């Protein structure tokens, strides 16, 4: 025992005094068990694609070792993969503040900025990454995508080519986006080559399927070029069993002047032209003009002539497309001025998933009714506020959808409340609030025929006693049910034919506003 103790003592002295200190550990601090444990667990979760679980471990690792570049980097990666881009950006910027030349930091930041749709900044960051990581395919891949997003189509394919050269597994998507860039430029031979490569490399995927669609378009002589203008013309013979004046959706004027309770044939001409004067990446601005003209066979006093110029600006930010529109209406009924209206009508489209999107409708409209064919029409002058949303569910392949929506609108007219008296019309007759519920579906095409079914319920509660009621003290309520069915088919590249049926049943507690109506129509449309 004594011998062992002496031997151990000698050993320790020898180790301490004589052995050179060669360990690299001599230069470093002892490890932190909290950091090591949490980083290991975080990375294990990360490696199994369990990013939500990984995040708290990386955060704890950073608490144990603040500023640690490994934990910072993987936290940034984790946040990127869970689409927490704002936080991810902050984390990568922290990493780069500590290590300004970190290639992976710049790449991570570039990817985050790309996902935040700050493409120009993404390209700046990726340029730094390129200097540090010249052989990293993802640097060139995200450069290519950023150029594509910026509509810099000429600069897209070279970056993607480099990406797939360095990272062959990126080839299917790199070919695909190169194809899109060539397609956008109208360089169809190259686009064809790229899409064919996608079809060869990835035939079973959605990407391969869409590449096939582009190839078909190219084979048909090229893409439907997105001109800066387009024009649509329609002619429509219609039979209406109860002709009603309803331009721009307002309730018809009371009495036989607005609701004929007579049937008639009419021909409708429709023209719409649009010019997109500015289009750069996600931004679009332009104007359009629509003309609607109906000619009744007998009831010419019900002919409508409507002119609607519109100016719009549209921006797309990720899944959100916002369109701001100014709409002017000048409408004549029976050749006489009927309505002049100005509206500001934003339309916001949010794509939640590839199969789900929402349209949010907003509108403020100023209405100036004209005395013309209708006596006291200007009592209806006022403002209309509208807000609503429609949800769409798209089928696989997006050939069909189901929709449901709701809108609320409030019509504000001048004049004090409850002043209407029997036979003495006033602005108070027309102030109202409306609730519209709609459902509908577009069915998958059968033999290239598209069928759309729609049902719409509009509950319109007026604010005041109505002068059209026999005693002048009934507050008007309308319940309007509308059912429509449309079958349409493309006849040629430019012309289509549709058959439509529409039934309206307007129930009102004031008989003069109640009516039923059926319309049968054929519509020939040309698009240019």
């Amino acid at each position, binding site marked *: *025992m004594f011998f*062992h103790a002496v*031997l151990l003592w000698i050993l*320790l002295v020898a180790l301490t005094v004589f*052995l050179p200190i*060669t*360990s690299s*550990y*001599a230069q470093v601090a*002892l*490890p932190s068990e909290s950091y090591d*444990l949490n980083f*290991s667990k975080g*990375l*294990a979760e*990360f490696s199994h694609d369990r990013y939500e679980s990984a995040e708290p471990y990386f955060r704890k690792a950073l608490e144990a070792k603040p500023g640690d570049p490994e934990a910072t980097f*993987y936290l940034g*990666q984790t946040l990127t993969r869970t689409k927490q881009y704002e936080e991810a950006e902050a984390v990568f910027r922290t990493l780069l503040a500590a290590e300004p030349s970190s290639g992976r930091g710049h790449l991570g930041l570039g990817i985050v900025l*790309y996902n935040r*749709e700050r493409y120009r900044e993404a390209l700046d960051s990726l340029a730094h990454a390129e200097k540090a990581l010249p052989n990293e395919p993802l640097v060139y*891949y995200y450069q290519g*995508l950023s150029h594509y997003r910026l509509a810099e189509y000429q600069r897209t394919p070279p970056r993607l080519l480099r990406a797939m050269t*360095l990272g062959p*597994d*990126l080839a299917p*998507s790199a070919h695909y986006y190169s194809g899109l860039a060539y397609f956008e430029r109208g360089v169809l031979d190259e686009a064809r080559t790229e899409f064919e490569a996608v079809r060869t490399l990835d035939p079973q995927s959605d990407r391969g399927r869409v590449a096939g*669609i582009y190839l078909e378009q190219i084979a048909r002589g090229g893409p439907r070029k997105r001109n800066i203008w387009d024009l649509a013309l329609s002619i429509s013979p219609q039979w209406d069993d109860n002709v009603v004046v*309803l331009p721009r*959706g307002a309730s018809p004027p009371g009495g036989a002047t607005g609701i004929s309770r007579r049937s008639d044939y009419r021909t*409708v001409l*429709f023209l719409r032209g*649009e010019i997109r004067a500015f*289009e750069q990446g996600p931004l679009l601005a332009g104007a359009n003009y*629509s003309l*609607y003209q*109906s000619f009744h066979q007998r009831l010419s006093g019900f002919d*409508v002539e*409507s002119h*609607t110029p*519109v100016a719009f600006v549209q921006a*797309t930010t990720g899944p959100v497309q916002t369109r701001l529109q100014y709409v002017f*209406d000048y409408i004549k009924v029976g050749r006489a001025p009927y309505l002049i209206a100005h509206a500001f009508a934003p339309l916001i*489209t949010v*794509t939640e998933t*590839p199969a789900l999107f929402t*349209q949010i409708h907003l509108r403020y409209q100023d209405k100036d009714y004209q005395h013309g064919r209708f006596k006291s029409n200007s009592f209806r002058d006022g403002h209309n506020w509208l807000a609503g949303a*429609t949800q769409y569910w*798209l089928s696989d392949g997006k050939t069909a*959808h189901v*929709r449901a929506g709701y809108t609320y609108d409030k019509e504000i007219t001048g004049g004090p409340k409850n002043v209407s008296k029997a036979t003495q019309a006033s602005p108070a007759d027309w102030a109202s609030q409306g609730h519209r519920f709609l459902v*509908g579906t*577009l069915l998958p*095409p059968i033999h290239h025929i598209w069928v759309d079914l*729609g049902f*719409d319920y509009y509950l319109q509660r007026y604010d005041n006693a109505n002068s059209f009621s026999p005693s002048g003290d009934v507050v008007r309520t309308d319940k309007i049910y509308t059912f*429509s069915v*449309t079958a*349409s088919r493309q006849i040629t590249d430019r012309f289509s034919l549709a058959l439509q049926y*529409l039934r309206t049943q307007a129930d009102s507690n004031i008989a003069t506003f109640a009516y039923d109506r059926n319309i049968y129509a054929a519509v020939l*449309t040309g698009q240019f």
Partner: protein
Amino acid sequence: MRITTPYKLGLLGFVTALAIGVPVGAQIAKKNVIGLFTAVAGKVMVTHVGQPAATPTKLHADVYFKDAIETQAGARAKALFQDDSILTVGEKSRVEISEHVYNPANNQRSTVLKLVQGKARVLVGKFFAGAGSKFDVHTDTAVAAARGTYFVVWLEAPAGTTGVANIGTSGTVGFTSGGQTVEVGPRTFSFALPGAPPSLPVTITPTGPAGVNEAIAGTEVDDMPKEESSAEVAKQSGEGLGLEEGQPGSLIPPSPVTPPGVISGSGRGAASGSPAGSTIPGSPPSDDDD
């Protein structure tokens, strides 16, 4: 060759047994998984119980109860166990998992590792208060019993001296040799010759014995993420571009033919070809009429 009936029956029985036995065996094996390798550098061999020979292991491979992990020159491995403990095996080392009971419901964990050769680092991440809970590393002549800490155990040739260094910031390691136990506190180390009691713990310093620092440095292994292809990274990190069918940049799918609404009073309906497809097909019945 003519196949006889008994032979056929035998073959059928064998195939049936194989069909039943393989999944059951796989299930049993899966049940014995106690962790996974989070780092594998160089050639690391693992012998699973019931296997005749060691096979090379790889990153994120499972660790099974009774595995023996052996590293070759320049190799290192790190394993994360389900009980939140981490084992790192230095080069030219062999560690056997002799015992592993993990029962979180009863707050119990009992693990015994045997260091046969080389050096190993253990991080005992969780404290278990259940009866019989322990985390021990045995060598032929000594036992290091962790009491919630982070420590390194190594064997020094040729005398077979066992070293223990507590590199944690809290907790102790009960170091037993020659019938005596010393508590090795945070940031200290101790040695024990075979059959002799451990030395009194001494603070770890950069100028301390090279063997201590080499054992610590030699069990330092960075965790490794899984290998991902560029395409996988891009897919996970977000490409932001959908399959832009028919009309690049469009949010809305291509429209079928949409005629002007029968009841259109103005400007609606036929405009399905409006910019970037912002008008969807089959718009709800218009509020316009005549």
